[in-house]
């Protein structure tokens, strides 16, 4: 197949001296040998990969041998522990405070009265000189002088 390809490819040029020369020159470039280090690394990686897989397989599907009395004791111990644990759980559930009933939310329809808010402000002007007005009070107190002595008389009410 290779020869056919060469023939197809080089139909027009194979007889030219340049191509023979080119092939000769290309053949002069030799690739070096791979180092022995590569072989060691490849085999080590292969072993490492399978050791790792074996380790996982052992963990997932491995088995161990136990004497029957030891296995029976282990089973009994497991049953006893489970029983005690179950009892403890029951007691805790009895002693535990009653659960708070969940809050119920009831939707109550409330009639809404619409109010009209009036924002008009009415100012009333006080008449000048009228009794009780601020200005008259100020004029009355202008000449006020406190008395020197005050006698207080208390009358018994009826």
């Amino acid at each position: 197949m290779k020869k056919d390809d060469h023939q197809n490819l080089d139909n027009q040029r194979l007889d030219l001296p340049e191509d023979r020369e080119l092939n000769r020159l290309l053949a002069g470039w030799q690739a070096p040998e791979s180092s022995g280090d590569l072989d060691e690394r490849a085999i080590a990686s292969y072993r490492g990969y399978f050791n790792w897989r074996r380790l996982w397989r052992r963990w997932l599907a491995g088995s161990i041998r136990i004497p029957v009395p030891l296995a029976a004791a282990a089973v009994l111990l497991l049953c006893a522990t489970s029983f005690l644990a179950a009892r403890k759980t029951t007691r805790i559930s009895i002693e535990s405070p009653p659960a708070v009933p969940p809050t119920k939310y009831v939707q109550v329809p409330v009639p809404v009265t619409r109010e009209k808010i009036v924002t008009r402000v009415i100012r009333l002007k006080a008449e000048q000189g009228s009794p009780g007005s601020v200005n008259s009070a100020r004029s009355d107190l202008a000449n006020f002088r406190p008395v020197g002595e005050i006698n207080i008389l208390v009358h018994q009410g009826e």
Partner: protein
Amino acid sequence: MTDEKLLEDAAAGDETAFVSLYERHRDLVFRFTYRLLQSQETAEEITHDCFLSLIKDPRRFKADRGKASLRTYLCAAARNLAFKRLRRTCAETAFDGFSEHLVSAASQAPLRLLLDAEVSETVRKAVGELPPLQREALILFEYEEMSLAEIAEVAGADVGTVKSRLHRARERLRVVLAPYFKSGCRV
């Protein structure tokens, strides 16, 4: 034993099957990646990652089994990882591994070796300067002897596109490497 059977056993934890599979395809993946990126360190990393991802998820290959061989599948996986790196490093290429290779060749030293090393270095540079898709097509065709159909599978392109890339790559190399042609022909 077929690749499919070896892969099945290796994915089930059979280390011997993995080693057989790895030794069968290691050089192809490494050489292809090295020529594409021109860095030994990166090529080794990608080769390592390719095989590990194949073992971790062999179903990916099984899904494509109807149309792809493990050889092309691995090359496609390596190509994707290599292009991802190329994009990440903005086509920055490391040449450290190669210069060491050159020095060791030069230290053996007669003139012939020195000249070969020079030519080899020039070819390496010329291939390295090709656009990545042309480089990929050239490497798989010239060095890994893949057919155009296989390259098309690796690159996820049709045969016509691969043919065109290959043609342009060779044209470009012919211009760059013309001074090294023995017959003195110039394009």
